[in-house]
């Protein structure tokens, strides 16, 4: 059997079957189970290496041909696949607790399969098409059949669709630049096209207006999943570009442009988050700031670029899952998620509120939480390059911290004699508890990620070597 069949075709078909044949109560368990099994296979069985189990020899071949092009997942992709499907399993298991519709897990599995295909397709440039297809598959998750689509959805669809032509065409232009590297005009045009494409995909300042709109108008859990899945694979795709065209990474102008884009995202995301009175929008701005950190990491002039980027990516999945789950639980009680409606809810939903605040603090880089170690690592590298950038990043994170304290203040603003209640179900309490423990473990013992991170630089030929 080949790796693309296992990690692309199988989850896609599984998602399809779950959509049509499984009951709402069993589908999260089945989808979560499928994702967990795929994560374990990626962890245990190395791709393209023969394993002898008793008398049976097992070998997962790395590639498969499709319409004259190949989809390949190599040995180095194993830890990445384990991380991706492990985090996806977390999202799927949490579906029941969040009360999200059945199709979340089925479409979610298909989306993860398509996104995995985007890291497997060769030439890697075609990933832009698969990312666009995945973005389209997200739409039914965000807009239930009984709800009119809001402006955020339309804007999201528009930006994701516009990104694809820019990236595909820039790829073709970059090939021309490689042939004649001295042509400054061509280089600038290719760089501008590529920049625009990724600005649309990663929702770089000022193209991120759809994120807070979406967190306000759509289901928090589905939006959280989107904010985890798409940027994660877009970042891997972008790293592929930097690795394939080494002059992009070594160009000081482009590196500066990437860092400026990142700083704008972190600073504006943090500052806007501190001004919000809607906890859904706060999550949106926090994810923008987090994406800004990823962009900053990609612009580092250092060999640590891959390690720091992945160190940021893994806790992001956990933080967003916990945050989105807590928001979904709170949204059942306070539909609009505005400060005026969530006032004093800490006494009614203590577990959800605690998990939400911890996830928020983790994103703000609070010590002893999952977001702290990657931010320290990034800061250390940034401080060596530019103190101004470090200052603006600090300012953005302070903005997120202010937003966290404001949210906490509103949640605990209850009447003095009001009794404490536990309105979360045992499933919700368990999922939130596990997520929170995960945030603490990753914060206190970040070295647990080392076995996953150690082989990831091998994904790229030039970056991080």
């Amino acid at each position, binding site marked *: 059997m080949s790796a693309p069949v296992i990690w692309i075709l199988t989850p896609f078909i599984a998602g399809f079957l779950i959509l049509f044949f499984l009951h709402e109560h069993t589908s999260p368990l089945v989808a979560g189970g499928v994702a967990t099994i795929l994560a374990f296979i990626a962890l245990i069985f190395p791709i393209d290496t023969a394993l002898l189990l008793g008398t049976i020899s097992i070998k997962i071949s790395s590639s498969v041909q499709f319409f004259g092009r190949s989809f390949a997942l190599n040995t180095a992709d194993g830890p990445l696949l384990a991380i991706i499907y492990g985090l996806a399993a977390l999202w799927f298991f949490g579906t029941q607790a969040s009360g999200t519709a059945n199709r979340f897990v089925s479409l979610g599995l298909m989306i993860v399969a398509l996104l995995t295909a985007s890291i497997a397709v060769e030439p890697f440039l075609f990933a832009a098409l*698969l990312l666009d297809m995945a973005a389209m*598959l997200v739409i039914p998750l965000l*807009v239930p059949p*009984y709800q009119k689509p809001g402006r955020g959805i339309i804007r999201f*669809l*528009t930006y994701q669709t516009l990104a694809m032509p820019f990236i595909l*065409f820039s790829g*073709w232009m970059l090939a021309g630049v490689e042939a004649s590297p001295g042509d400054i005009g061509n280089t600038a045009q290719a760089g501008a096209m590529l920049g625009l494409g990724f600005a649309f995909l990663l929702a770089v300042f000022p193209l991120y207006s759809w994120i807070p709109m979406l967190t306000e108008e759509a289901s928090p859990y589905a939006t959280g999943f989107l904010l985890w899945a798409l940027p994660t694979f877009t970042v891997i795709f972008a790293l592929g570009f930097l690795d394939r065209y080494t002059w992009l990474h070594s160009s000081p102008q482009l590196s500066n442009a990437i860092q400026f884009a990142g700083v704008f995202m972190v600073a504006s995301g943090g500052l806007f988050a501190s001004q919000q009175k809607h906890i859904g929008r706060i999550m949106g701005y926090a994810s923008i700031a987090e994406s800004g950190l990823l962009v900053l990491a990609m612009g580092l002039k250092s060999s640590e670029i891959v390690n720091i980027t992945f160190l940021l990516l893994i806790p992001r999945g956990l933080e967003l899952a916990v945050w989105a789950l807590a928001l979904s639980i709170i949204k059942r009680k306070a539909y609009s998620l505005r400060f005026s409606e969530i006032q004093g809810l800490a006494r009614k939903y203590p577990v959800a509120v605690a998990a939400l605040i911890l996830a928020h603090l983790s994103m703000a880089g609070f010590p002893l939480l999952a977001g702290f170690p990657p931010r320290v690592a990034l800061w250390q590298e940034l401080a060596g390059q530019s103190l101004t950038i470090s200052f603006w990043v600090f300012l953005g994170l302070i903005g997120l911290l202010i937003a966290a304290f404001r949210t906490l203040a509103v949640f605990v603003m209850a009447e003095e004699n009001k009794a404490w209640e536990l309105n979360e179900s045992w499933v919700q309490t368990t999922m939130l508890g596990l997520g929170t423990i995960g945030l603490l473990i990753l914060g206190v013992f970040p070295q647990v990620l080392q076995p996953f991170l150690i082989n990831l630089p091998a994904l790229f030929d030039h970056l991080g070597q």
Partner: protein
Amino acid sequence: MATNIVSWIAVGLILVTSTAMLINRDWRVSLGALAVQYAAAFWLVTRHLPFVMGSAKLITGWMVVAALGMTRLGLPTAEEEKEDTFLLRGQWFRVILICIVALVVAGSTPRIEAGIPGLGLQVIAGSLILIGAGIVHLGVTSDTLRVILSLLTVLTGFEILYAAVESSILVAGLLAVTNLGLGIVGSYLLIAGSSPLEIEEEA
């Protein structure tokens, strides 16, 4: 020579249909214009791709038009009236916008042909008109159907140009799926909210 003349006719058709989609209030006319636009784009695509691959793009495009048309036909009349009122405004502004697009395309086409020889003036002009008209349309509307039509227009323009530089079957297939996906997503977004909440709860 005859091929060149037909190609220029296709470019003219693209300009007319893009203008019709931008300024016309009736969704039927817009979808009809999109169908004609796909036929013109088909001709330009086959300048660089085999006939079969061009046909695949044409059929996909027409499938998208059919899907959107069937969906729109089933929507309540009130929606139609609302849209009509909205689009009455600024027709001359839209005409001026499309004139600007045409002027920019006329100016940039020979320069692009000089920079990337072999694409063909007609292919570049047709592609740029579609991309420009699509982006202009996106800028002046927030109506779901019109946004989808604009995105399809931009994608068609891009496909014409990209067909000249990339002839992979996989890319052609994925682009066809993207177009179909956009049509289906558009249909879904048009339907969303038109059925009452009770139906969802019963299901």
